[in-house]
């Protein structure tokens, strides 16, 4: 799939929870689950584009799920229907799933974003373990392709009280995918290694180009420094050096 630089038009940008938004951009976009786009929703604004995972793709639109973090996502949240947004992508290596897997998806917070598309593509027997600080946001499109959803919240207001790793046991699965805060992913990988279950993690790092040109987004792996934007963002969980 060739990467493209395109100017897209916003179809919808809706707040689905406190500080969490779903953005649809019209057009025929390509990409696999776990890949991402670099987005720019401004002419005058922060210098760098912002990496956001593909949350879903339909024939005529692409969907991003994003969380308010700072300057860039603030501007995203103010975009309205018909506004322009620039996109570079699809970028990076996504999840290397197989159809009909018995998979567990383990997310923390906005890490749930790529799992919407992933679950749709695996079409297998999938459970989701989704941890949130408080108000969970499980969008409709996600529910459709998932067997069981285990929600946990830090304050216990919904589902299990505590961290998502408190309810998760990898033994029932042939493959585990995880996306979320580093400490969570680290814990998930550790259990998976212990139980000898394959696990893939979606990593983040600060990016400039997003296409493998600047060498700015490296993380440490057991086989040296690797670029998150090109060799990731999805890595084999066993490869990543979490304590770098």
């Amino acid at each position, binding site marked *: 799939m*060739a*990467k*493209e*630089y395109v100017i897209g038009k916003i179809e919808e940008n809706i707040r689905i929870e406190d500080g969490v938004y779903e953005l649809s951009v019209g057009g025929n976009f390509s990409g696999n689950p776990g890949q991402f786009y670099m987005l*720019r929703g401004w002419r005058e604004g*922060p*210098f*760098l*584009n912002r990496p956001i995972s593909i949350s879903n793709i339909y024939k005529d639109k692409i969907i991003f799920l994003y969380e308010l973090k700072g300057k860039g996502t603030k501007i995203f949240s103010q975009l309205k229907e018909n506004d322009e947004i*620039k996109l*570079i992508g699809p970028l990076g290596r996504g999840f290397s799933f197989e159809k009909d897997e018995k998979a567990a998806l383990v997310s923390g917070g906005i890490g749930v974003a790529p799992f919407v598309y992933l679950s749709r593509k695996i079409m297998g027997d999938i459970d989701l373990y989704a941890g949130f600080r408080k108000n969970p946001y499980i969008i409709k499109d996600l529910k459709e392709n998932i067997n069981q959803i285990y929600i946990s919240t830090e304050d216990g207001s919904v589902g299990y009280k505590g961290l998502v790793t408190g309810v998760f046991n990898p033994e029932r699965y042939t493959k585990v995918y995880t996306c979320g805060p580093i400490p969570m992913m680290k814990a998930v990988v550790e259990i998976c290694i212990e139980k000898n279950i394959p696990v893939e993690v979606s990593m983040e790092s*600060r*990016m*400039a*180009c*997003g*296409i*493998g*040109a*600047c*060498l*700015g*987004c*490296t993380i*440490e792996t057991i086989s*040296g*420094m690797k670029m998150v934007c*090109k060799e990731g963002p999805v890595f084999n969980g066993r490869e990543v050096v979490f304590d*770098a």
Partner: protein
Amino acid sequence: MLKTKLWGIEFKNPVIAASGTFGFGKEYEDFFSPSELGGICTKGLTLNRREGNKGIRIYETTGGLLNSIGMQNPGVHDFIKEDLPLMEKYGTVLIANIGGSTIDEYIKSVQIISGTSIPIIELNISCPNVKEGGMAFGLKAEIAYKVVKEVRNATNKPLIVKLSPNGENIVDIAENCVKAGADGLSLVNTFSGMAVDIYKRKPVFDNIIAGLSGPCIKPISLRMVYEVSKAVDVPIIGIGGIMDYKDGLEYIMAGASLIQVGSGNFIKPNISVDIIQRMEMFMNENGIKSIDEIVGII
């Protein structure tokens, strides 16, 4: 109309991809054909492979970014074996950007590169991102003179020296590089800058200091290009925060014969194509027949 000839080499246009921001070109192939460019500078090459710096490498600032890549590169040998053959196909002028920690290392790398098809060498004596990254060579005029002199003797190819904006006096340094045999000067490399993580109460970068680039630096680098172009007689390559054709023309009118686009590539991968096209439009509208007419016109 945008064509220009320097050091006996013809450039399709004056727009060159800056070192370290364009990889070896292939990442950009999906977006446009690198053959449209006037030239491409390679990522900074050292004699041996380097892994680069640990920790955070990129940090956004107002109007730019700090980087602390730390000279990650495959080394000249692997570059020649693996990357150069692909680059040769682009049909544009290639420039090898050479870094190093010792004069000896510079000389060896330059000798090796001289044995290839690459027509131009850009000597990077200005990388702020590794302890022995060469910037030490670019800060004082006498030291710059010494390293350029020695490297000069190691190659017959046009030798461009890429200057640091952090040096003691850029005009002095420039004059010394020319005296030592530089055929051209590129300015500037990144500015030494830093950022503090106030929550951790620590510098953001493991290395503390990082290199600032982007439009934030343009007024300063433009001034340096202007001052240096008045002082020396070799062609100048203007670099720093070029984001559109207007920026590029400012550099050219201030005295640059060529320009390099760096951080701008990150924002819009085909930014240079825009710059080339709009520059041509501007020239048409303003009755400028050749870029050479306006180099240093102000």
